[in-house]
């Protein structure tokens, strides 16, 4: 059976505000899934809390809607437990770069094969529009009583410095382009990050589709090559960081950086413990037919011999 984008829709009513950028992300996701013909039973969307956090309910694939800021931590457990799953994280900018920042960076360090989609609307949507970590200092979106007083983070630079091996930016209103990024991220082996510019129609009257229309341009149009060649990771990284510092007046989208040479954490575990790669943990036997543990008296004594003392006779 060939799955169409529509086959990944659930019956759940999508309750984002009309005009919200999240619709574009969802559409791109459906299309990417269809293009890759992902098996919904082997795909898991993990999310945090926020408007963005609702994504899994709208997708017919396994969905784990977790806690604010913790999606990556849950996802890491899922992926390490079963590396066969395609694991995708959807989170907000407050979610991933505010409360969840520690996990966001840890994922870069670990290079677990998880794809992180940042719904970057520069506000805390679901709590009614407070400033998020990607809102620049001095800006006053309509829901703020006063201008934002804290400097913003640069998600791309941060992901690069953290060790993500695939770093990209997309724009929710350019759904085809975004779909391609998602496909590339899923195909990539290792931790992947897409900063998705997502207009919040209700609370963010600065970063509107209008705003982005004027500023967004595609890296590929400039002939940008994000790919690391063997041994040249550092140069490519530095170049990508430089690109990421480009001012707000011209916003590049596309793949900034892609490094195919780094070992994933799952691979490292497999190297350390070959049986980990041979039989997936969930399907490893832990007891016999009758329910008794596979570690029986004999195996127990062998396995734990350093703790067992054979008492001297007589």
């Amino acid at each position, binding site marked *: 059976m060939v799955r169409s984008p529509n086959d990944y829709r659930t019956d*759940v009513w999508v309750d984002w505000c009309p005009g919200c950028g999240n619709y574009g992300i969802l559409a791109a996701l459906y299309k990417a899934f269809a293009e890759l013909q992902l098996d919904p039973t082997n795909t898991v969307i993990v999310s945090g809390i926020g408007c963005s956090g609702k994504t899994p309910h709208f997708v017919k*694939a396994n969905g784990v809607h977790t806690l604010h800021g913790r999606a990556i931590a849950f996802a890491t457990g899922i992926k390490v437990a079963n590396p066969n799953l395609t694991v995708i994280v959807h989170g907000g900018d407050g979610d991933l770069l505010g409360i969840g920042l520690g*996990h966001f960076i840890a994922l870069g360090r670990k290079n677990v094969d998880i794809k992180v989609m940042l719904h970057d609307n520069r506000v805390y949507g679901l709590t009614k529009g407070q400033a998020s970590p990607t809102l620049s200092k001095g800006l006053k979106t309509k829901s703020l009583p006063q201008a934002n007083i804290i400097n913003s983070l640069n998600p791309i630079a941060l992901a690069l410095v953290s060790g993500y091996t695939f770093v990209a930016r997309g724009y929710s209103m350019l759904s085809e382009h975004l779909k391609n990024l998602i496909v590339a991220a899923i195909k990539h082996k290792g931790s992947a990050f897409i900063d998705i510019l997502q207009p919040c129609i209700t609370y963010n009257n600065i970063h509107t589709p209008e705003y982005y229309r004027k500023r967004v341009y595609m890296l590929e149009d400039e002939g940008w090559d994000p790919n690391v060649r063997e041994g040249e990771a550092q140069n490519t990284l530095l170049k990508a960081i430089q690109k990421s510092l480009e001012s707000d007046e011209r916003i590049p989208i596309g793949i900034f950086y892609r490094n195919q040479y780094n070992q994933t954490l799952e691979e490292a575990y497999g190297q350390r413990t070959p049986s980990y790669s041979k039989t997936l943990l969930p399907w490893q036997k832990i007891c016999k037919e009758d329910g008794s543990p596979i570690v029986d008296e004999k195996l127990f004594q062998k396995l734990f011999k350093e703790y*067992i*003392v054979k008492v001297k006779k007589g």
Partner: protein
Amino acid sequence: MGGPQGSGLESSAQILSKALAYLGYGLISDREYFSNIKGRHSYTHMRISSNNIPLALTYPVQVLCAMDAETVFTHFQDLDEKGSIVYDISTLQTKYTVIPSIEPRLRERLRVLFSELGLDGTISSLTRYLKAVKKVRLIGLDYQNIISEVSKKFEILPSQATRYLSSIAVGSIVGLTGIGSDAIKYSLESRFQGNQTLVEHNNHIIELVSKNVREDYGTLYELSPSSIGLEKMLVASGNDIIAMAKIVGGLRFQSYYPITPAADESFTLEGFERLEVEGESLGSLIVTQTEDEIAAIASAIGASLAGVRSSTSTSGPGFSLMVEALGYAGQVEAPVVITYYQRGAPSTGQPTRGAQSDLLFTLYASHGEFPRIVLSSGDHLEAFYDTILALNLAEKYQVPVIHLLDKFLANCIATSPLPDLSKVKVERGKLVFEMPEYKRFNLSHPISSRAFLGSNTIQWVAGDEHDELGHIDEDPVNRKEMYEKRMKKLEIMDSEIPLEYRVSYYGPEEAKLLMIGWGFTKGAALEAIGRMRENIKCAYLHLKMFSPFPAEYVKSLLENFDPKNIVAVEHNYLAQASKIIAQHTGVKVEKSILKYTGRPIYVDELLKALERVLGGERRVVLEYGA
């Protein structure tokens, strides 16, 4: 045996333990140390028995083995009349006032005491006093001499030879107790796994010292042959035994963030990642150090959703950070085990000391209401079985399980018989692997069929209130039904989990005095039953499961006792377990024996306290131990 932290005492205790086990003796050995890596005072308090496995520690001690002057100053009062003290004669002129690591309060107590006793504060005056007044046998050795000898004999630098200092302690005890050289050899081999140099050097010191001691003082504490009769013994700390139990119980994923006194369990587990026996693999165990405790529990829950038996181990500060995700596990009905080693609290508290002050916290941690199991263990073997029980119950009832332990158990090395694995089963509860219209939270029964992420199903899981499919749902009727579905599990668990897993009664049926306790208190309480004066029959009610709490049994049992003869024995200030009893049964336990210095309850002080309770005191606070 006492000496500076980091000077090898831990290793000495292990060597002695295995040697003693090899000879069939029972022992329990507590390790007390500061939150410090090197230099502060630490000691091992060991009790050895030839006719049973001792359950708890007691004072006074027969032998005090001091690696340094601080140990003498800290512990001379722990010595029995006519006991023996082993010390370094080169410290004779050392005054307590020049030892910087002695804490101000102890220094002040010593000042007062020495001035009362007319001592000048040196080891020399103190030992003379001990000999004269307490008839203590003084076993002064020249530690430096011994080390020099070793350094000469093996042609190593004196600085290197110093690493063997702690073997002087082993040697002196070997000498005084008459432990045979075969036992020590066996133990050293096992400790140093093939490093013959270490075996040889240590063995040499031990032989040298033990010979000297025996020659000069005789085998003062000769151990009679063991009558315990075990062919094999487990010699392990609580941390280690729990690690073993997790492996037997089928654990496949352990996440942790380092914290005392939990981290050693994960460290032990890491040694078993490959789960290989004679080259054959039984599976694999992922042990993963996370960026913090929030990630530790979140990833354990994630692994659980993927169908893997998972757990995380921590202590108070770590658990405090896990609270939000604990509620998530409760809400999404994810099995997960949290192995929780209590330590001195609140806050950072006393990181390396013991306590039982987190019970109420574990019962109500996280906002909102959801079923959970809180299970505690009283000794090493109990902890072994409970660990597997925890893994089973978590999956069977699809709830988070908190396995409550403490630093005492974690760090105590004890001998025990090998666990009886024929009693152990792995129970995974209701599983489903394939179902087209799968409803993870089917309302038709409180316990729904559980599918793994990645089996032939699709499921949604949300911390928001959800419908049967797992999608967010705010409908009030659904809310009520889903809430009740979850909470009903409490009743089901209460009716299904056998009483013997939840509470044990020790002592004669017609006892007069009832102690109630939990966790590590068990050992001291059981010994107290045996050692209480003849005409007072004592019993001990050992509480193990606090959620679901065996309310009816406890209530009817308490009704058999005169309220003035019921006493809570706990390592906390509030007598927390008795609060839970009152809450569930309406019976207020009015008397208590409590200890919260961070040191374990000793049998002797417990006995004295019981007498005071019988004499009418309502609250006795224990404080023995350095």
